[in-house]
């Protein structure tokens, strides 16, 4: 009886080890990668606030747009719809930033709700991990004539995580490359 118990226990242990080995990432590291991914999304949210702010100098906006673009994998798109325009419009990331900067308001404030959701990281066929992080943005635009526009949008942001290697000062550094991908932007009724 005791033997059977131990056999079952070791079998369970083996399967547990097996599943970790398959993923090659221990839970602590996985959590650290989750946090890293969330941090990249928060970086993006800060860049967006800077780009949208009418007080940001043109040269600063350009620099920040470059940095924000670096967060993305090439070819990433934003699919945008709103409550009164269900049709999804697709923009390249840079195009989206430029449109945001050119919005016809005298004052723009972009804030972020202190709420986010980080999905599980799933492996895709090529081995890269993919996840989705959801954040919510509050937009307020006002014109000098007193017209204001407000909305809350949900942003579902693809993240790709891949282990990579690079050479720094002659030694090989293994790092986790976290890149943002396509973003779905929907207006919420909340």
């Amino acid at each position, binding site marked *: 009886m005791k033997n059977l118990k131990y056999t079952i226990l070791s079998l369970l242990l083996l399967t547990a080890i097996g599943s970790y080995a398959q993923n090659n990432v221990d839970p602590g590291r996985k*959590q650290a990668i989750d946090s890293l991914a969330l941090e990249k999304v928060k970086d993006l949210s800060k860049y967006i606030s800077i780009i949208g702010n009418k007080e940001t100098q043109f040269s600063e906006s350009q620099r920040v747009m470059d940095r924000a673009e670096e967060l993305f994998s090439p070819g990433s798109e934003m699919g945008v719809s709103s409550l009164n325009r269900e049709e999804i419009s697709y923009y390249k990331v840079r195009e989206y930033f430029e449109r945001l900067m050119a919005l016809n308001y005298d004052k723009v404030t972009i*804030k972020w709700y202190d709420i986010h959701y980080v999905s599980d990281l799933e492996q895709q066929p090529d081995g890269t991990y993919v996840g989705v992080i959801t954040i919510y943005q509050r937009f307020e635009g006002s014109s000098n004539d007193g017209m204001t526009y407000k909305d809350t949008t949900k942003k579902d942001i693809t993240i790709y995580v891949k282990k990579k290697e690079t050479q720094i000062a002659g030694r090989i550094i293994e790092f986790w490359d976290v890149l943002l991908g396509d973003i779905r932007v929907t207006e919420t009724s909340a």
Partner: protein
Amino acid sequence: MRIIQSLTFLIILFHSSVGQSGLTYEMKETENQLYASNKQINQFFRRFNGEEDDDGNRYYTSDKKYRDASLRKKYIPGLFDRETSQIDPNYARDFVRQITDKRSPAFLNFHEDDWFAEVTTEFTFKGRRISGLLYMRLQQQGQGYEWIIEDVAFDQFQKLFDKDTSSTKKFMHPLSHELDFMTLRKAFHGNNHNEQFTAKNYTPDFLTIFLYEMNQGNMKFETVKNVKFHFFSIDGWYFSLANFNRPGYNTGWLISSLVPLNGADQKKQLKDYIYNKN
């Protein structure tokens, strides 16, 4: 001393609320609603399974409260659409009782369960904008998983196939073989329902037609209009999942219908119905 303490606390509070997020009270209210919302299908899975704490933090397998029964009992009622779907409360009660049963609780498994997506899409087909459904499913592939198109339903394809099975239907007579099948000439002439000349058990394969038209360049993808999910993963039950974008605390991905299934036959019937195969 106590006054100083509470003042310090107030200052910290003031700094953290204004300094970090700068949310207005109106936004705080919205934030609470967004917290309650099932923001992703992934979150629906976690709340269904009891893999998330009260503050929305993830429980890992090593956590004590991972998949805790009382946690699930608290979360699961919030996973139903309570505003529009009119789910039978008796069904809901039985369903919850079954999945939270102490001896054999039921959980959702992202990779292994029998669940699939129904995606309402729009395409341009021969110059016209048409609507159709893609049925999509997860598949193991390479080092991970991918979503694949399992089937499609387009009116434009379906209406081309209307097989006449009556005794008065057109046919090629049983001695056609003696004439080198010259009966084919008359059979095909001016006929746009050539499926009459197929076997009794013939069913058209719309996925192949769809792929053919796409690969030929006759059909072009435009956009996704809506997404919902069908779950056959809990023994004896079917439920669907839809997204509810509305104000309040009952929003996001919620169970929009719940049907008890008696046996494999009912399951097949319902699946055929969903796949538009009647």
